[in-house]
């Protein structure tokens, strides 16, 4: 039990270092938020949806924005570790690789959730969609999707960290793999908002399956990737 607490505290320390460091440097979080806002602006200019259309398109737009915005964040997950052999230092800490993964994942998860917290109300305002009473349900679906998205994303970020043109590569690898997440997330959000049919249950179940698979697999795979 104490061992488990020690591991959890270690993971928490890594996440804390990442999140607080990022907030102080105002690096990732602000660029993610402004990237998300510019996606919304571009979308409005390209489609000019009416209020009816906006309600129908909102789930898809929300998830596309989240997906692209998370790519911005994921490109920088291991940036701090690249300098001055910081990754070696991290790997030398007396923690299993899975715990290191957990810490990096929590940090990215928290940043992504913060962006979503700003994004959803902003979308409802900008596109005149009256769904304030269902906001908590939308956030519930988003949380489920973000768990799996960031777990897989941090893993792929570790994989492409030393690659040439890694940001493009990250997108190329991540987008097909999160297809189930996108489909399930959009359908569930649509069901919650009442624009995509009535029942969110099968889609929420699919989100849970995806989360379960990657929460089990990602720490294991991370161990293989960073092993010297």
């Amino acid at each position: 039990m104490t061992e488990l607490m020690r591991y959890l505290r270690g993971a928490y320390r890594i996440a804390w270092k990442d999140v607080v460091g990022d907030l102080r440097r105002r690096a990732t979080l602000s660029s993610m938020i402004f990237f998300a806002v510019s996606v919304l602006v571009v979308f409005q200019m390209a489609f000019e949806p009416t209020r009816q259309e906006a309600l129908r398109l909102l789930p898809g737009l929300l998830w596309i924005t989240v997906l692209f915005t998370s790519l911005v964040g994921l490109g920088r997950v291991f940036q701090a570790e690249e300098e001055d052999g910081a990754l070696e230092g991290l790997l030398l800490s007396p923690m299993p690789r899975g715990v290191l993964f957990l810490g990096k994942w929590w940090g990215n998860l928290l940043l992504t959730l913060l962006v979503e917290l700003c994004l959803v109300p902003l979308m409802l305002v900008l596109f005149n969609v009256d769904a304030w009473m269902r906001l908590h349900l939308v956030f519930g679906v988003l949380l489920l999707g973000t768990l799996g998205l960031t777990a897989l994303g941090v893993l792929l970020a570790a994989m492409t960290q030393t690659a040439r043109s890694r940001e493009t590569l990250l997108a190329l690898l991540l987008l097909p793999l999160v297809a189930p997440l996108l489909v399930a997330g959009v359908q569930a959000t649509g069901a919650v908002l009442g624009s995509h049919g009535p029942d969110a249950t099968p889609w929420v179940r699919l989100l849970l399956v995806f989360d379960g698979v990657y929460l089990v697999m990602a720490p294991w795979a991370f161990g293989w990737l960073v092993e010297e």
Partner: protein
Amino acid sequence: MLARWGKIEIWLGAVTLILLGAGLWLAMTAPADFQQGYSVRILYVHVPSAKMALLSYLFLTGCSIVVLWKKSETADVLAQASVSVGAAFSVVTLASGAIWGKPMWGVWWAWDARLTSMLVLLIIYVGLMGLRSALDPGKAAKATAVMAIIGAVDLPIIHYSVTMWRTLHQPASFSKTAGISIAGPLLIPLVVMAVAFICLGAYMVLVKARAIEYERRIEALELAEEMGHEEMHHG
């Protein structure tokens, strides 16, 4: 190591050629389908290549597990080869499907479950190629193996989710529950073509693997030569 398989390669090539010839002849003389007319002949290429696109991924997954488990260089070469071969088969599947879809459905493309899954499979193959070429050779083997295994776990979820999403494709003919629903004269060429494509896939993997092995050996030699030159300058 793979160079020793040269004899197998030649025999496999010959068998593939004979089977492909026989299969194509059977396919071209097969009677027209009651509903689909002569367009059904496209399926003699389409169905076997779809099976091969998936079979290549299965083989790739096996090789990737061996790479992680035994750190085998041969398995890594075979994995790299099967990515290219699998990608080729998925392109053939998508192209022949589009050609078949135009007269049958009236459109080149429909976003149904199996087409979408095949397209995603192709993107995963391309991603694997990109990952390998973007990493140092020392890291590429392990990273692509992990990525291939992630894809292997993800593919069933992708297929399940897009099936839930929508389905409009004709039901699979080789379904366990429905029994085989193709008449004999149309089935025989399909079986011959399927066997021919399995041989073709194996042959392509062997040829590609040999080419990759030569490529790696040349790179190693060039590297050694460069190091030698540097030493001469220093000495």
